[in-house]
């Protein structure tokens, strides 16, 4: 894809995509070594969150789901705190109380990932409501899967956002499956983006392997939202290269999807595609791109070391944070 996006932004996207990729390759390695538990890998989908977040400002909000590392890293989360959280340590984002599926960093607008499928969709809609009520110019974006798109929470939120013209982006990551079930067996329309019509908002179908396409679609939706024109539904067609989650040994990928299908999608690795665009357009050299990857790799190694060395939360943390005020829990 040819583009007039700045070199800085392209290199930032490449950096964030490599951070996610190396972060999760490291998690896989540490899972195999018995250092961390099972987590949901985002590998293969990096262009979706990174392309989308590149179109957002720090003051904008995002919320996500159980496939939970890509969104925060794309929005600028700190790798050390993210890794320490997955290790259940006190220096983690949530002091070890959230774990992999509940990364959050309110200071950079990450309102949190969610273990309950579609549960963060109304929350992101509410952040957009606050923006509108207060006449602020921030927007919110929520990432959810093809499976989540069948939840009432999604439908209720899209309708609510549309009748109230809220500045929210509904970003559906259609990675083709919910665990082992193809969306073709559970979604009544051809494209999830078609559902936008029912809520009287634009529905955009995007190549989710292409970070630049994601950026451009999101930028358009953000502009609409900031102008007070309301929400947009973006369906990003993508694919998870790995199993539903590490640790679910029972779910063999070949039982519900063909190896050939996986191989075909792997030919469209989002990192290869973005690197190629950058190199082909003369924006940066292959060596510069390799350096971005090497840097991200080093950051991830450092994060893993940081996480390993961080202490576990002690007993004094157990009841803390149940309430804002100090009060006995029972």
């Amino acid at each position, binding site marked *: 894809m040819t583009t007039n996006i700045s070199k800085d932004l392209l290199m930032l996207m490449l950096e964030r995509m490599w951070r996610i990729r190396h972060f999760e390759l490291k998690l896989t390695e540490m899972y195999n070594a018995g250092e961390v538990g099972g987590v949901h890998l985002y590998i293969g989908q990096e262009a979706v969150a990174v392309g989308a977040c590149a179109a957002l400002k720090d003051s904008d909000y995002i919320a996500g789901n159980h496939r939970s590392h890509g969104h925060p890293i794309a929005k600028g989360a700190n790798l050390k705190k993210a890794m320490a959280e997955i290790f259940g340590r006190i220096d983690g984002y949530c002091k070890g109380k959230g774990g992999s599926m509940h990364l959050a960093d309110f200071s950079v607008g990450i309102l949190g990932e969610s273990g309950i499928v579609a549960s963060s969709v109304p929350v992101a809609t*509410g952040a957009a409501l*606050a923006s509108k009520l207060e006449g602020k110019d921030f927007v919110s974006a929520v990432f959810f899967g093809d499976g989540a798109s069948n939840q009432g929470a999604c439908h209720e939120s899209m309708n609510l956002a549309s009748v109230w013209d809220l500045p929210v982006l509904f970003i559906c990551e259609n990675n083709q499956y919910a665990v082992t079930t193809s969306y073709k067996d559970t979604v009544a329309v051809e494209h999830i983006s078609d559902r936008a019509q029912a809520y009287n908002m634009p529905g955009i179908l995007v190549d989710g392997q292409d970070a630049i396409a994601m950026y451009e679609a999101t930028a358009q939706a953000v502009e609409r939202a900031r102008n007070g024109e309301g929400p947009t539904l973006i369906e990003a067609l993508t694919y998870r290269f790995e199993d539903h989650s590490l640790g679910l040994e029972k779910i063999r990928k070949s039982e519900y999807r063909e190896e050939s299908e996986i191989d075909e999608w792997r030919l469209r690795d989002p990192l290869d595609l973005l690197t190629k665009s950058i190199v082909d357009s003369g924006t940066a050299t292959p060596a510069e791109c390799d350096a971005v990857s090497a840097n991200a790799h080093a950051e991830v190694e450092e994060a893993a070391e940081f996480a390993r060395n961080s202490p576990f939360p002690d007993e004094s943390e157990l009841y803390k944070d149940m309430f804002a005020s100090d009060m006995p829990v029972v």
Partner: protein
Amino acid sequence: MTEKMFMQALGMGIAEEMRIDPKVFLMGEDVRASVYGAASGLHDEFGDERILNTPLSENGFFGAAVGAAAVGMRPIVETLTSFMWVGMDQLVSQAAKMRYMFGGQATLPVVYRAVMYYGGGSAAHHSDRSYPVFMNIGGLKIVTPGTPADAKGLMKTAIRDNDPVIMFEDGTLLGTRGEVPDDPDFTVPFGVANILREGTDVTVVAIAGSVPRALAAAEEMAKEGVSVEVIDPRTLVPLDKETILNSVGKTGRLVVADPAAKVCSAASEIMSIVGEEAFWDLQAPMQKVASKQVHIPFSPSLEKLVYPTSDGIIESIKKTLG
């Protein structure tokens, strides 16, 4: 002080807080027309911007309140207890858990106003007394005002509080009258029980709609020379254990009157605390006067058998006296 109806007192509390704090807004189904009464006059005063009629999407707008609160607003959500089931995921997975799960990053000043109708022939789908369910979940403050003054004072505290609060507005009390302070600085703190009547022989802890019934029972018992202390905990989370334990220390006898269904009721929890912490103070087995463990039947001949009554409370008081 002015005499007000419970329902008006709730509305006064909301209006006063909305005047003070522009971040407070109210949303719910048909709130502009105030079909449930307490929001009467608010739309005229505060307009479309701050009084929002929602679609019938409890999960959607319960969750939107969480999101708005997470970024600094102070939403009030109006609903009925019986419609809360539809929005349970947002109440439990988000409102209740978000702060803890994110290590204290989220501050969620949301008030869910749950109008609690029962006793009027509304049958099983519109008669829930569900506060014990939410006590069990944790992370939510649970408020059950028993008098008009508390309705106003606790509403104001709920709106100022930085945690998610559920105000259970007992339908059997909405028409009751009482003196309500006009002072906009008047509030009622959470976690402080109200000793409505002092006594020395038996302690009756009464929750929500049981409050007037317990007071009537105490009045009757006084005629028989029995001195009953009546305590309204006012908030179930946080619970003022001290006041209850001190009273039991004095009387040695406990009756708990609770309109919720008997199994795992608020009464169950209070009795369990007294059993664990004040067993040796007790001179007789504790008595629970809660609703029968059935769904609410439509027919008045059956429905009237379900809830705690003054007579039921009197009977239990007598049991503790042997």
